[in-house]
């Protein structure tokens, strides 16, 4: 059982969050107060829902003994331009200033004043020299267009399993915002779902890669979950450096509400050979991870005069209808 003890820069240690067992839980998101102009063409044309059989066909590229890291075959990513609309405006570009340099990552609003990202975006002893000193967070950044203001954050959290052990299954963290941007932009629903929910589910991933647009453009791809282990989700979705911290989301009931089930963190190299798959991966939002996210969100929201939904309760997510097999 993982000991998900939150550690926070600059103050250390909070009480360990107890893990629960096998109950599906949802921490509801919220629509923001910022107006939504219609139509949302990116949502209409890009996102996927439900479950499917065969994967979308790919042409795989092998460069001798070196396999491309996280673009699996041909690059199938699409740029999102409507980043002032939901859910794209809940996805944040991160410019991370740390003792050993400046880095780029992605995060997503999971509460009124909380951005969730990969643990290595807030703390990495070797790459960054420890804790980030400052992270510039810009929701919905679109090249030179900034529909929402950039926020400079200086307080972050992650868990001891990442800090002490570099455990890829628990590589997640939080950025505590100086403003309640989630109240304006809205924030994602996050959930701990079952293995059955994840099996063959189509997932969506969107973030700010460095190889396209130098971390200021949102790029999207989708495909199917290949394997879900107790603490990680593996998928055949194209990503690149800079997309660490991107939300991995699904639509469990085939409805309009995106539900984040993982926090993208790794390319192909972090997929265990024993799984015999070519896939990128994310730490999975399990019950105890969800409880930690909720705690961070509630703590941050308490600093502002905003209301938050109640803490997660068990709920049943209806099984989506089986969709037609994809044509190959």
């Amino acid at each position, binding site marked *: 059982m993982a000991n998900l003890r939150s550690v926070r820069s600059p103050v250390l240690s909070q009480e360990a969050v107890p893990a629960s067992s096998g109950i599906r839980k949802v921490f509801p998101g919220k629509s923001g107060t910022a107006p939504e102009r219609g139509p949302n063409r990116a949502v209409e044309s890009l996102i996927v829902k439900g479950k499917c059989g065969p994967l979308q066909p790919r042409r795989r590229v092998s*460069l001798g*003994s*070196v*396999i*491309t*890291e*996280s*673009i699996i075959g041909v690059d199938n990513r699409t740029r999102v331009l409507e980043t002032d609309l939901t859910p794209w405006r809940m996805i944040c570009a991160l*410019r*991370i200033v740390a003792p*050993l*340099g*400046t*880095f*780029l*990552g992605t995060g997503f609003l999971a509460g009124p004043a909380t951005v969730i990202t*990969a643990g*290595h*975006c807030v703390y*990495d002893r*070797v*790459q960054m020299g420890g804790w980030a000193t400052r992270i510039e967070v810009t929701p919905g950044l679109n090249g030179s267009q900034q529909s929402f203001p950039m926020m400079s954050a200086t307080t972050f959290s992650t868990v001891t399993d990442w800090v002490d*052990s*570099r*455990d*890829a*299954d628990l*590589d997640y963290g939080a950025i505590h915002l100086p403003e309640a941007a989630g109240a304006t932009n809205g924030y994602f629903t996050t959930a701990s779902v079952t*293995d059955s929910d994840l*099996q063959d589910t189509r997932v969506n991933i969107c973030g700010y*890669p*460095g*190889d396209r647009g*130098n*971390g200021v453009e949102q790029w999207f791809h989708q495909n199917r979950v290949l*394997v*879900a*282990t*107790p*603490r*990680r989700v593996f998928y055949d979705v194209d*990503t*690149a*450096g*800079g*997309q*660490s911290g991107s939300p991995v989301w699904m639509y469990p009931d085939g409805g309009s509400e995106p539900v984040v089930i993982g926090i*993208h*963190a*790794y*390319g192909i*190299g*972090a997929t*265990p050979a*024993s*799984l015999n798959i070519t896939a*990128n991966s994310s730490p999975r939002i399990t019950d105890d991870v969800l409880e930690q996210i909720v705690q961070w969100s509630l703590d941050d929201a308490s600093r502002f005069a905003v209301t938050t939904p109640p803490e997660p309760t068990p709920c049943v997510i209806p099984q989506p209808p089986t969709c037609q097999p994809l044509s190959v």
Partner: protein
Amino acid sequence: MCDPATTNVPTPQRVSGRVVDGNGAGVADATVTVESGTAATPEIAIVTGADGSFTVALPEGTFRLGARTRDGRDGKVDLSLPATGALVIVIRRS
């Protein structure tokens, strides 16, 4: 479902490098990413300093790094770790 497959990310080695243009001048504010590799690397991107310098943390293995300038030009370099010598990524002329 599969057995648990927990992976502790291997402790990496810091490698210093520089992104330069065709004349050898450093390229500031370029983005460096790991495009391919034989070991686990977090999907973070690195921004070069004013003189084009950067530091990347990589575990033992073989990797290809890519660099992209603000105006969309790119360059690549292959390396193997344990590494010796300076790492240079030359940006191709547009």
